[in-house]
């Protein structure tokens, strides 16, 4: 992996608490959180604006759900690297997201080490 530059991450989650958690985990592990979005529309706009190396995308959000946002971002940038955030019991949606081009997924509640492993893997 290229460690010479901090990887730029956009964090998308409707819950401010979850965004904070992810941000903390990432900061401690040498990622740069370049932006946060609380809903799908915002996520798409921020993605266009920031062109991050990676997006963590909550799968259930009010309004546009994660799978739809994934599609829309990948329509704009087919090389977008997106990792879904999901809770237990959302397997079908996660499978759909992966078939829709998501690189990987992390499950809530977050295990910091697994989150970091997953994101590193997704950036390879």
């Amino acid at each position, binding site marked *: 992996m290229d460690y010479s530059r901090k990887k730029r991450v956009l964090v998308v989650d409707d819950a401010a608490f979850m965004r904070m958690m992810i941000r903390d985990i990432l900061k401690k592990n040498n990622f740069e959180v370049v932006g946060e979005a609380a809903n799908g529309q915002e996520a798409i706009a921020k993605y266009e604006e920031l062109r991050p190396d990676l997006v963590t995308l909550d799968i259930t959000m009010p309004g546009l759900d994660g799978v739809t946002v994934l599609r829309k971002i990948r329509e704009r940038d087919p090389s977008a690297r997106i990792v879904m955030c*999901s809770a*237990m019991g*959302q*397997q*079908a949606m*996660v*499978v*759909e997201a*992966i*078939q829709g081009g998501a*690189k*990987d*997924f992390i*499950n809530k509640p977050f295990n910091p*080490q*697994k989150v970091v*492993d997953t994101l590193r*893997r997704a950036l390879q």
Partner: protein
Amino acid sequence: MDQKTYLPVFIEETKENIQLMSENLLLLEQHPDNLDAINTVFRAIHTIKGMSATMGYEKISQIAHEAENYLDWVRDGKAIVDEQVINALFELADEIEEQLNSLSATGETKETDSRRLAVLSRFRQDNGFDEEEELKPALYSIRVTLDPDCMLKVARMLTIYKQVGTYGEVQQVVPTVAEMVDAQTADNMECTMVTDKTNAIRHFLATHGDVAEFSIDRKGPAPSVSHEVDAGQQVAEAADSAEPVEQVEPVQQVQQAEPQHNAQANAAESPTARHSPSIRIDTEKLDRLLNLVSELVINKTSIQQQASDVPEMSEGVEHLNRLTADLQETVMQMRMIPLETVFNRFPRMVRDTARSLSKSVALEVSGAATELDRTIIDDIADPLVHLLRNAIDHGIEPADRREQAGKPETGVIKLQAYQTGNRVIIEVADDGAGIDAELVKRHAVARGLIAADEQDRRTILNCIFSTGFSTTGQVTDLSGRGVGLDVVKSSIENLGGEVEVNSTLGKGTLFRISLPLTLAIIQGMLVQCSEDLFVIPVSYILETEIIYPEEIKMVGQQRIYMLRGKVLPIVYLAELMGVEDYTPPEELSMVVARHGERQVGLLVDDLISQQEIVIKNVAWGQELFRDFLGTTILGDGSVVLIIDVNNLLAPLKIKEVDKLGQSVRSLPARQ
């Protein structure tokens, strides 16, 4: 999320890819060095392979794999594309298509026809490719077991599978993705793949927190697909070199390096690439929507009539009118599909037919983007196939005869479609031997179809559409054009269409089909005639006129009317409709209708209104309704028949009137 959900999409997309493959194979046949075509075929087959492997249809992916391997050598310049190879690839395309048909019919793949697969294997052996194993990729079995504590195992296994897949070329995965999804869990997976990146795979799996155990075992050299039945064995025993997934990349490089080919390549990517964003709709739902709109139109008409006395409602009714019209238009638009969907299969069909007859025939297609209502599209394919086959079989002469006639060796069939007004014209023209009108005439006169003194060339030629015209042995002498043409004619007429033929002996033959754009809703004129009501489609109507019985003249047996100095043959519609003891009213309405290329005045008692007519077909007894395009239900619930002007007037031999008309015209015209 189970496999059944994907199956229709899989079948459809695979068919599209087969179509793409066929189109480009035909191109290759003309230009064996067309790199774009090779690449397009390669991409199509590669996509088929990937999709079918994902769906767990090994038989299909193996067939695709075989084709892909061969093409790869072609791209590397190790093998050539000749007629035999193209034939073999067509066979593989057919085999895949049959597998798909089997899938749609039974949900299962069928036994692979091993002879088809054998052909390419033999070329490969003949060319000595089997010894040329200079590439390192080999066949590996990769087994993965997930950590029991791992959550969302199916999704996890899927990401692992996807990642591993990027390191090589997956031949088989157990369980398949669909099986995992069905089972809701996935502890183990075995992936059989061709790869030369085992280190990367090892690194990926070893560092993955959710992987409890894994193994990577070499199973043998990278396989080619043989035609044995068992997939596992096959993979193991086959011995050949194949380059995995990166094969796609050179394609892209070629495109980038040669921008001038880019546009072509993109265009060749039809039909999938060209479509605007779309969803697939069950045609039954579409039909139902149309039915509902039809009901709405009937209801609207009824409301409109009842509201005509209530001025306060006029604005609302007007709005309803506009909305219904828009809705109807939109639904009709939704039902329009391009003829392309039918035309696409013709190049292959023409090629095969010509080949089987040892003839050289080129098909030139134009206007494939012309759109028609789905119901018409569905039913136009068979008549067209028939006309094309006839053109190849009986129209285009054998090479030696063409040479004698001073024609190029390759016969040309032009298939052309275009829209004119609210009709679509499809023409099938060949530059073959043409039809001997004299022979047709003799034959037709003998069968009592026409009078012995018939002179009209068109009338004579069109006798070939008559039922039973072709059933005698003489037909072969008439270049056999009669075979089944009565069936062609009746199928086209059932669609509200017309077909006619023109031909010049020695030069070629032209069949012209004219079809309505849509079937279901038409503009119609409601007319009263004695006690009956009828609808005359507005598309037939040129103008209407009030006339008086004393203005009607007789020429021989034919009534005529002088319309602006021209002779117009006229008929009482009531008489045509078998009304006995008909007494015309003192003031008549005349509908001037188009009848082929002629005009005829239809006299009716009254014109009631022009309105939108929803055609309701009667399912039983088509033969009884020959003179009618169908029926419609009026706002008051009554049923009215829609007149098919051409069929109704056909037995009247109105043409006789033309001659009479000329004689009248030669008299001093008086009004």
